[in-house]
């Protein structure tokens, strides 16, 4: 396939993905906006005012970066896993399989689609947060890099989940039993300095802790971990998950007989 044809195919996949989540915006864009507003009101305003400062900032300012990152992670993952699995379920994935689109273009298209929704939600939540606190950017490149790479990483995670899933239950297991606990325990609502030594050590094996802290560093300039180590880890995971995804596509795991 020629390069310009591959670019057209990539744009087609991305356009279709964006059209899909825009068509069902009450399911895709509205819920995270409502949920995050409630977090800001309840945790930030009501409870946060009694907690006081954390990491040198008032509690609302401390949790905003984590909540933005949480919405980016869950939306990126959810978009790819539900879209790709629906295509498998409806067999419309065959439209792609019979076409000459290379596997890496298919993967890039879905990941970009997931990132579009994840970053779009991140933008909406950021705008909402401005109604509750003032945000100043400490390190813009770190903010941009962290949010883009994290969104790409969880889009890849959603893609692998969709490839492996055989029924609709399978696409909710990971978000419910893995992603949500890791996010809540990933330092969104607290600094790990508050934890006893043992649990601080356990927290350090949670990859989401690194992403939340790298993003928080970019905005507030404070972090529980080295933000550059966090970026390196995200890049490493992206490389690993990309290789796994391409391998699964080449073998036709769950999509070819």
């Amino acid at each position: 396939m020629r390069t310009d044809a591959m670019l057209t195919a990539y744009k087609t996949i991305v356009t279709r993905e964006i059209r899909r989540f825009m068509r069902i915006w009450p399911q895709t864009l509205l819920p995270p906006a409502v949920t995050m507003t409630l977090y800001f009101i309840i945790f930030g305003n009501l409870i946060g005012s009694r907690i006081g400062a954390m990491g040198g900032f008032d509690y609302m300012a401390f949790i905003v970066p984590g909540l933005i990152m949480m919405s980016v992670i869950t939306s990126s993952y959810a978009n790819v896993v539900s879209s790709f699995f629906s295509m498998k379920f409806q067999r419309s994935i065959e439209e792609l399989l019979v076409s000459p689109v290379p596997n890496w273009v298919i993967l890039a298209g879905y990941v970009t689609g997931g990132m579009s929704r994840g970053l779009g939600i991140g933008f909406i939540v950021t705008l909402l947060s401005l109604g509750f606190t003032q945000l100043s950017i400490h390190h813009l490149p770190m903010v941009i890099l962290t949010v883009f790479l994290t969104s790409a990483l969880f889009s890849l995670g959603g893609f692998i989940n969709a490839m492996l899933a055989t029924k609709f239950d399978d696409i909710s297991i990971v978000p419910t039993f893995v992603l949500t606990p890791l996010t809540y325990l990933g330092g969104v609502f607290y600094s790990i300095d508050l934890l006893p030594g043992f649990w601080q050590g356990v927290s350090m094996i949670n990859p989401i802790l690194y992403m939340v802290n790298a993003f928080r560093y970019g905005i507030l300039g404070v972090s529980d971990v080295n933000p550059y180590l966090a970026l390196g880890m995200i890049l490493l995971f992206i490389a690993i998950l990309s290789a796994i995804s391409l391998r699964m596509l080449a073998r036709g795991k769950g999509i070819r007989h």
Partner: protein
Amino acid sequence: MTNALEIEGLVKTYGDGFQALKGIDLHVAEGDFFALLGPNGAGKSTTLGIVCSLVNKSSGKVRVFGSDIDTHLSDAKLNLGVVPQEFNFNQFEKVFDIVTTQAGYYGIPLKKASESAEKYLRQLGLWDKRNTPAMMLSGGMKRRLMIARALVHEPKLLILDEPTAGVDIELRRSMWTFLEEMNRQGTTIILTTHYLEEAEALCRNIAIIDHGKILRHTSKRALLQQLSSETFVLDTAEPLTEAPVLDGFFSHMDDEGALVVDVEKGQSLNGMFVQLEAQGVRVVSMRTKANRLEELFIRMVEDNNPRNTKQGETA
């Protein structure tokens, strides 16, 4: 002339050990209208699935217009259009979006894709439904949508797996006309069908597959010459209540009240007409029965499955 499709020693063994294809060879010439026939589970869809990259082969070679799917898969796919047996589009998307998106997968820019989509949606009578979500279409419209989608990138080889399944007679005839026109314009067509009348009416060459093996691979004419008798349907001026007895011929009435007469090969038709005249039966028109192929097909499949013969015969 280049072959549109060449298959050599194609084997497919599924994960559970079931061997769906046992080393089949097949070739379809460019410009042909070809039928792949076989009972359910014979290996038709597996064969076409491998050609279309929906099924991984175990071994063997497949070439589409000379492009080997192992080494030049992208080139092979560019020449292929596929109409599957099951509806496989996103039911929530609009008709026009489904067709233009498919064109995009082939690298066709949106402007050109839109023109091509309009052309085929108009030809298939779906242009008025272009903004309708696919789920709102009737079964026949959904089938036509899949044909428009398969043609949007102007493939040289069109593969149709049971294209008229569940479609009413009127629509089936209009789809035949459309496919015949596509074939006349140079598109090679391969179809599988359960309606043997369809294969007999449309196709020039035929392969019969059963239990993963090709039983026959020849022209329709050569296949039909194997028949020892031919069946004629006679319309009479006055309706008959029962079939007249004709010496040397087997006659009966069909469900629509027409007289049906079997004529052995080499037997003169004059004798039949003399007897009908003598009995006061006036024939106003006559045609050959179109499902002769069905008879041959059943015979071949039964020969390949001796266990399917009646138990009483072997007891």
